[in-house]
């Protein structure tokens, strides 16, 4: 086996295309998982069982079934119901939804970690419930969970190649395509492996730094 720098150079244009798609998935998927996870967490705090129960069942179901199965379901079944999205949109929504069932647990822990005294002080000041959430509880809860959310972003980065299975050409998809066309596997796969490390490792250092700063 020999290393061919020429193959690396040939792969690079596709690499950049793939990197762009991977980062798109990561950013949009993260935003969906952050927002939706918070919605789930708040719905699980409502007093009515009729809200908590269905939300609990659905999120438990999504968390405990494989992402790959969900991707196939969204990609092949939803169009039968008339919902036709591009592969990328489908993938981003599926991965965001999947991860939202994890981030909801992170938010829940963060909300529960806010001392009861904060709620009591808000009641004593007659603050409306909604305002207590937005001005007192959530700012404290979210600050505490930023590092944990960051860890899920890194985990999601490592899950992005699964989207290849529904024809999304992210890093691994581009590498495979290049390999099959040129019969050169070593170079493209090594290049994207290095790329994953170059993104994930600094990101994990950033998460650790945030942990030191934000979690008291």
């Amino acid at each position: 086996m020999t290393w061919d720098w020429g193959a690396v150079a040939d792969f690079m244009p596709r690499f950049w295309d793939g990197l762009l798609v991977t980062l798109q998935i990561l950013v949009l998927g993260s935003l969906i998982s952050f927002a939706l996870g918070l919605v789930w967490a708040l719905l699980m705090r409502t007093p009515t069982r009729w809200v908590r129960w269905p939300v609990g069942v659905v999120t438990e179901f999504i968390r405990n079934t494989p992402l790959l199965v969900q991707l196939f379901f969204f990609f092949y079944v939803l169009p039968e119901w008339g919902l036709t999205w591009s592969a990328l949109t489908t993938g981003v929504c599926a991965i965001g939804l999947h991860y939202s069932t994890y981030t909801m647990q992170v938010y829940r822990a963060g909300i529960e970690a806010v001392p009861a005294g904060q709620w009591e002080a808000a009641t004593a000041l007659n603050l409306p419930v909604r305002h207590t959430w937005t001005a007192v509880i959530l700012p404290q809860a979210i600050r505490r969970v930023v590092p944990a959310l960051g860890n899920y972003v890194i985990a999601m980065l490592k899950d992005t190649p699964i989207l290849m299975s529904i024809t999304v050409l992210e890093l691994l998809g581009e590498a495979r395509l290049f390999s099959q066309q040129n019969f050169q596997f070593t170079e493209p796969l090594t290049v994207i492996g290095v790329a994953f490390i170059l993104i994930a490792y600094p990101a994990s250092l950033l998460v650790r730094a945030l942990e030191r700063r934000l979690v008291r």
Partner: protein
Amino acid sequence: MKDPDASANPPVDGSELIRFDHVTKRFGSNTVLDELDFSVESGKHVTLIGPSGSGKTTILRLLMTLAKPDEGTITVAGDKLFPAPEKQVREVRKKIGMVFQQFNLFPNMSVLRNITEAPVTVLGMSKDEAEARARELLDMVGLADKCDARPTQLSGGQQQRVAIARALAMRPQVLLLDEVTSALDPELVAGVLDVLRDIARTTDITMLCVTHEMNFARDISDQVLMFDSGRVIESGVPEKIFNDPEKDRTREFLSAVL
């Protein structure tokens, strides 16, 4: 019984402001308050003393609606606080402020914002007006230079003085003080008690105070209520309770804490 329409007239000094009728509060099988009747007159400073677990703090928590009684009625300035619909509870609760043992300042806000948050959102005060008032209050508690500090940058005594300013910013008629110096280092207690003495002397606010600082209780109280097992077993002016209590139980308690 009070006329339900009496709320239309603001209470004058000396009229009944707080009234508990047959209030019972249980936690599981433990009866903390047992058909308690008591009332507090407007402008008075009342101290609740008694062994821990005798229900003193529960009274403050019921008044602040942090807990609900199992039975009985609670009336504030002629309006029902319990039982009452949520909307009325919110109105009646505006008359009450509370300072907690653990301060409970909002750590995500500056000192100034801690004080202005409720006046702006609940009373609809303008930001400028609320800030001007907050600065006055901070000056009163000796912390005029701490406006922009975060609560975590302050000592416990300073945090508690901010908490007092925060409660007063809502202009409550009643101030509930729940063991406000118990969590403080000994050298910080005096500063907080001095602020409270000042407030007791210079305002007509009604104070309901649970404390283990007997000298402070003697100083500021118009009336002392001795609790035991969820009932008031003795009440009177501080001179009477502290110097010449009638009940053996009171004498025992005082000799243990003094």
